[in-house]
């Protein structure tokens, strides 16, 4: 049943995205591309934060790690982006495992502060390691993906690739969600002590969630690098991590649909509110705050208003966490 629902979600993504790709003007296609790339990253963050409850304020560092590995491999060694992408994801996965081992022993605000420090350190290093990263000038002329020696430089062509990547990530995430690992991750979020008592290996589960979320982030980073074809440290500062978290919360945490909805909404919102000028970010903050206070389960939480109670009142264990 639930696998069926996520396949419907994937078909919706491909159908809606595909038909939009035929009608939207170039500029909106560009925004849609950025939204889909963010969605890949936020679906990854959902595994760590939504399912497992790990507050990460350093997700953008993993996006950046993926982007930088791909950019360095393609511009320095002339590796094709298709080969650089798995390498970039592998680097992010290994890094997440190594850093996750000591990091994930921390909980709550300690973890939030440590990941924040990690993100800040990432930006300091990429801004100053001139030989490798080009410092604040960034890396330009990143080659595009090529399909049958046809480069995906047009927004439309890239969108199809991005949608396909998102579809794959969504499928994998929903398989995870409905597997015994997914249920174990949610158990760890709801009550770590109790899940340890039932014999779950909580440190390993947390590391699994953190690593998978880093892999999605690195994939998003690779897509970003090949789409914009220029990266610099500011693209991956901790404010971006906060934006990813805000996307997830506005959309609805621990829901894949919510993650995508939040990513698309918060990418397009600045455009719709462009007439506000500088006031936009203040409004953005107010929006996130209001959602937190009045809609703690995000826009996806609104569904319960529209759905008729079909079965016995559904217990919501997710609300019980404190």
């Amino acid at each position, binding site marked *: 049943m639930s696998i069926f629902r996520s396949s419907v979600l994937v078909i919706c993504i491909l159908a809606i995205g595909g038909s939009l790709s035929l009608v939207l003007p170039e500029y909106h296609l560009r925004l849609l591309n950025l939204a889909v790339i963010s969605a890949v990253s936020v679906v990854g963050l959902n595994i760590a934060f939504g399912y497992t*409850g790990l*507050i990460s304020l350093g997700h953008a560092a993993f996006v950046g790690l993926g982007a930088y590995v791909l950019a360095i491999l393609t511009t320095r060694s002339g590796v094709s982006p298709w080969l650089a992408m798995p390498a970039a994801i592998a680097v992010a996965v290994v890094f997440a495992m190594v850093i996750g081992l*000591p*990091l994930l*022993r*921390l*909980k*709550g*605000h*300690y973890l*939030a*502060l*440590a990941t*924040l*420090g*990690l993100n*800040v*350190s990432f930006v*300091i*290093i990429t*801004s*100053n390691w001139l030989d490798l990263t080009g410092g604040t000038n960034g890396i330009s002329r990143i080659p595009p993906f090529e399909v049958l020696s046809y480069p995906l430089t047009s927004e439309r062509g890239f969108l199809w690739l991005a949608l396909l990547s998102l579809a794959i990530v969504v499928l994998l995430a929903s398989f995870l969600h409905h597997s015994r690992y997914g249920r174990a991750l949610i158990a760890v979020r709801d009550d770590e002590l109790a899940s340890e008592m039932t014999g779950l290996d909580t440190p390993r589960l947390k590391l699994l969630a953190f690593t998978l979320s880093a892999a999605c982030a690195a994939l998003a980073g690779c897509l970003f690098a090949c789409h914009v074809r220029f990266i610099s440290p500011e693209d991956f500062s901790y404010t971006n991590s*906060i934006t990813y*978290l*805000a996307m997830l*919360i506005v959309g609805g945490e621990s829901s894949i649909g919510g993650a995508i909805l939040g990513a698309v909404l918060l990418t397009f919102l600045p455009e719709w509110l462009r007439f506000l000028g*500088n*006031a936009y*970010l*203040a409004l*953005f*903050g*107010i929006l*996130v*705050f209001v959602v*937190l*206070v009045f809609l*703690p389960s995000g826009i996806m939480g609104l569904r319960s208003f529209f759905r008729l109670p079909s079965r016995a009142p559904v217990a919501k264990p997710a609300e019980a*966490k*404190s």
Partner: protein
Amino acid sequence: MADFFQLAINGFAIGGVYALAAMGFVIVYETTGVVNFAAGQFVMFGTFAGVAALVNAHLPWPIAYGVALLAMAAFGIAFFALVYRPLRASPAVTVIIGTVAVSIIMQNAALLTFGSWPVRLASPIEGMTVELGGAVISVHALMTVGMTALLVACLWVLLHRTSFGIGMRAVAQDVQAAKLMGLKVNRLLAMSWVLGALLAGAAGLLLGPMWFADVNMGDPVALKAFAATIIGGFGSLPGAVLGGIFVGLSEVLGASYISSAYKDLISFGIMIGFLFVRPQGLFGEKIQDRG
């Protein structure tokens, strides 16, 4: 040697500012349990309260500083009513992200009010220097160190020798029991936000003449205050003071003796090291209690 002495005084001065910011953060955390990610913007508001009173309204400086601190106290009450009250029953994660959202609101409210152009907030003792053993030291740096010490002493007396402070510490230990003892818990919680805002305001007023008053100054200050809190120990006031001074010294000395580009990495490196090895910091709370 004279160089080192001069740098050390500057390190103590900036460290004092970080210590005040970290103390404001810790007081709020201890009494209300809120990890305030907007703490850096509190300091920025302090600086800009000074800018509004001194530069824009041209008030004479003793009045201007008083007005600025009064404005910060009012801001503390507003924060209690508008941010803390709606979030108080939410899980810790929600509170963290809520304060992050408020931090974005505060930064952009300041941007809309004061513009993005940095302002010079002069110190009343601008340009005065003294020579000590060949080192030229600005009086403002010395005053910052002195003010920090004075405020730490005042805070200690407030928390340990007045009924108000003892009530506040009782709330920090156990809200339920404090309520049963007949303490006005809500008022004490509001006062802890006022105290946090006042400490941040003092930090902002002292920091203004050292840096330019810039609406983006909140984030760097917040990161240093967090590092100071982690190093000193979450929820410990002596820890916040020591941590702040340590971060200030490591920043100033690291910039001149190790690398100016990587100066911030030193304090974050030490912070992350502490989190891995000794997350409770130098004097911290027992980590399993909270978090």
